[in-house]
């Protein structure tokens, strides 16, 4: 009898190979976050013993956790893949976007411009993303092959029906597809894969002591990019990150889980979704993710 994880791996590997076969210039978004790490390992297994036949693409806000960048560089070296970096700072320097300012400034929404510019510059026609449908309600509606028009926009009303395992990647020049090969994985599936295949992740996914302060009921990490405001007091807490994104809008959770098994035990009984617990950007409005996705976000 096949296990549930086994059939998820088969499905994802099939999607990754299908894209490599059908598109001219695919790329895979790789941030060093756990979902993209799992996706990269699936790609490596899909083409073994050959190399992964497309590059990784990191959209770098410049506001990173140092451990994640160090991990990112090690991972692409170990798995022998090419890394392309799209720099939000470079987009700012070139006048493509204005840097976010103010006490709660975040470069998170600015990534969309850099992402779309990178896609255009490298003529990518398919970009793999590690989004999962269990993460967020707009993502629960998105196809595995998700069409983007020449402006990089997603239109949920004209999504193509996706039947059986047949995917339709037909597009006009200048348009592209976002591909979500781990759509059907849950947070727990990701961790079970990490455990079963002994996958290395950035250290900040495991409990560690860190300088944090309380904001909007979340623990935000003190960093060169994020400082407490007046009235927000800093303390050292035992925390870990459930998701890893831009340092200005990703919160930590209180946790003493230092091993994969402890993280799985913690995730199994979690009563709050991972984005609900850790993402300031999703709290903007009822349809925050849908609105960002419509304009070309991940």
């Amino acid at each position, binding site marked *: 009898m096949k296990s549930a994880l086994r059939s998820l791996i088969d499905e994802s590997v*099939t999607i990754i190979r299908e894209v490599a076969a059908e598109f001219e210039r695919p790329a895979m978004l790789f941030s060093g976050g756990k979902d993209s790490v799992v996706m990269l390992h699936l790609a490596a297994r899909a083409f073994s013993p050959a190399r992964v036949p497309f590059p990784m693409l990191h959209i770098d806000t410049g506001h990173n956790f140092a451990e994640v960048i160090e991990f990112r560089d090690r991972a692409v070296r170990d798995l022998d893949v090419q890394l392309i970096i799209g720099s939000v700072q470079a987009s700012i320097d070139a006048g493509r976007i204005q840097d976010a300012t103010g006490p709660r400034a975040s470069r998170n929404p600015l990534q969309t411009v850099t992402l779309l510019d990178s896609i255009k510059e490298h003529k990518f026609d398919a970009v793999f993303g590690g989004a999962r449908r269990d993460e967020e309600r707009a993502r629960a509606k998105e196809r595995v092959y998700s069409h983007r028009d020449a402006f990089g926009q997603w239109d*949920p009303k004209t999504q193509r029906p996706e039947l059986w395992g047949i995917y339709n990647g037909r597009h006009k020049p200048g348009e592209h597809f976002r591909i979500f090969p781990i759509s059907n994985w849950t947070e727990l599936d990701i961790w079970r894969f990490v455990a079963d295949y002994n996958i290395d992740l950035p250290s900040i996914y495991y409990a560690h002591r860190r300088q944090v302060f309380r904001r909007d009921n979340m623990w935000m990490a003190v960093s060169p990019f994020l400082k407490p405001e007046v009235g927000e007091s800093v303390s050292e807490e035992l925390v870990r990150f459930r998701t890893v994104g831009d340092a200005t809008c990703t919160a930590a959770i209180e946790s003493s889980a230092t091993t994969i098994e402890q993280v799985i035990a913690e995730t199994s009984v979690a009563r709050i979704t991972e984005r609900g617990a850790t993402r300031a950007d999703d709290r903007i409005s009822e349809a925050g993710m849908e609105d960002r996705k419509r304009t070309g976000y991940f």
Partner: protein
Amino acid sequence: MERLHFATVGSVDDGKSTLIGRLLYDSKSIFEDQLEHIEAVSKRRGDDYVDLSLLTDGLRAEREQGITIDVAYRYFATPKRSFIIADCPGHIQYTRNMITGASNADLAIVLVDARTGVVEQTRRHSLLVSLLGVPHLVICVNKMDLVDYDSAIFNKIREEFETFASRLDLRDVTFLPISALAGDNVVSRSANMPWFEGSTLLHHLENIYTASDDNRIDTRFPVQYVIRPQRADTPDYRGFAGRVAGGMLRVGDDIMVLPSGLTSTITGIDSPDGPVEQAEPGQAVTILLADDLSITRGDMLCRPNNRPRTSQELEAMLCWMDDAAPLQLDKIYTVKHTTKLARGKVSNVLYRLDISNLHRESDIKELKFNEIGRVTLHTTSPLFFDDYHQNRTTGSFILVDESSGQTVAAGMLLSPRS
């Protein structure tokens, strides 16, 4: 145990969202922040109760209009099994979405209101489940609390359905009397219906046996991608990657390649976990052969004595899905079938199926949005296929409009009528 992929079909009035909410809530799969969020939205809108449909209606337009437009996927797990729910809108204008959600499903749940019994919508949904070859169907007779948990009403609905369904191709149908709102027979057994001796819905979903649903006899391996590492340490590696669409592949098996008809022997099977001795339906593997044959994407491996049918003239049930334009006879569309691309045209609509009453309407020249008909399809190159009822992978295809790029139809290949 294998994950169970099931589709729920029905409209809000049937209590579908309440049923899903109940399954998620009672299996502790709704998170606090999700519940708080929908409670706040329900309150702001002035609803009397928490609207569980907000859990799945993720798009702005759906929330504004209070309707489900598109298929939503939900995930939950119990200690026994994990589940994917494809929550399909039930109204007639969303037939396209129901077909999308049910195409991959192992099981479909159709809800019937105990007060109204089998209605047109029930017949339509059951027909689509039958056409799509979903192996298991559960008819949930809901709102039993509103008919005093009366066994006579449940039995009458069951008989009504069985009379109608005798004309359909349904392999396994289960009837359950439930109340999604009150929780009867969803997760816990109902004290209100001691006369019902079957299991609860969740128990049924956890225990249903699906491994025999795959076709494990007719070996089919559509070649998806050729792996040729340009690396010094593996100079001679040439593997054919794909997903097993039927039967078993074992090291040492003789195979035949279509369309060339050349034969060889399997010398190795690589899986995502490394070398394996055999592969079964659904597995993504790479096949190594003893001989250096010319094989490309779109070819198919099978056993020399068990080949799929090969033809350029095919019969199919076609569900038209394009709301922009109807099917035009003799217009050329792109045909996607397994890993193969061809071009094709529909030369003839043999009949259109009235999905409310199964009537066959002849003398039809087009199929409009959400209409289903039996057609003759001509392709530019031969397809290697099986009857859809023998194999859902090698028996299915889509049509793509060559100018808009849209997926305009879903097709199920059938044996020609004798």
